[in-house]
């Protein structure tokens, strides 16, 4: 067994950080949502790695729930993006300043 749980956790952290950077730095709302998926996926990888290390399948159950939440979130998020686009004719996050007084 050459690969330990630390390898998976470091990979998960790297994927999470790349996703976090995308959420903060990109201006395209669709890319922001994709980066969010990347972060969720990194968390799922950590769940599965710990499930394997602890010999406990609870991590798999949590991962299935996390995928369900991600699917619901993407459906609502993309509907909102389409709605915003038809309203503002753009999905640039810098333009969305509706709450600014």
């Amino acid at each position, binding site marked *: 067994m050459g690969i330990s749980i630390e390898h998976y956790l470091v990979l998960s952290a790297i994927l999470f950080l790349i996703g976090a*950077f995308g959420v903060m730095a990109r201006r395209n709302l669709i890319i922001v949502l994709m980066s969010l998926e990347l972060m969720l996926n990194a968390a799922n990888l950590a769940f599965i790695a710990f499930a394997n290390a*602890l010999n406990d399948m609870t991590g798999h159950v949590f991962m299935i729930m996390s995928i369900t939440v991600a699917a619901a979130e993407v459906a609502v998020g993309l509907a909102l993006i389409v709605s915003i686009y038809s309203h503002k004719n753009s999905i640039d996050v810098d333009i969305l300043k509706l709450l600014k007084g």
Partner: protein
Amino acid sequence: METIIFYLFAILAVAGAVVVVSHRNPVTSALSLVLTLFSTAVLFVLLLADFVAVIQVLVYAGAIMILFLFTVMFLNLRPESLEFDSKSLTFKISAFFVVLLAAGYFASIGFRKGLSSLSPTTIDPKSFGSVEGVGKLLFSDYLLPFELTSVLIVIAIIGVVAIAKRREG
């Protein structure tokens, strides 16, 4: 062999993630996200999580990515309109915070002890991660959370329909 597969698909996953974040064309980003999700599914198989790997490919790389691509084509964006601006203040601030997070995480590895000693028990590869094993857990110990996810999906469907209707009216 296991080491080679891990490093191959780990590098593929990270490369796909970098392209998702950095490419200016949303379709390329979506397809790179498929690469990342698929590589992660291979790593799940490596971790003996067969059922979850299948779910990952079917739901994530299948259904969710179709939704993304459909929206990208529906909006018909101009590729040059939302370019990656590496000189903006937002970029610098995000880079600073990500480097800070990375430094904090990788510095804390030194203080962690005994994660490798977590795997004392031998895993039975036949039952671990199978449909039967996950299903038994899902329908006994986690029955209430499982049923609540169906409520969540109903709420999501109602929300999406409400948003789509308001747009027309």
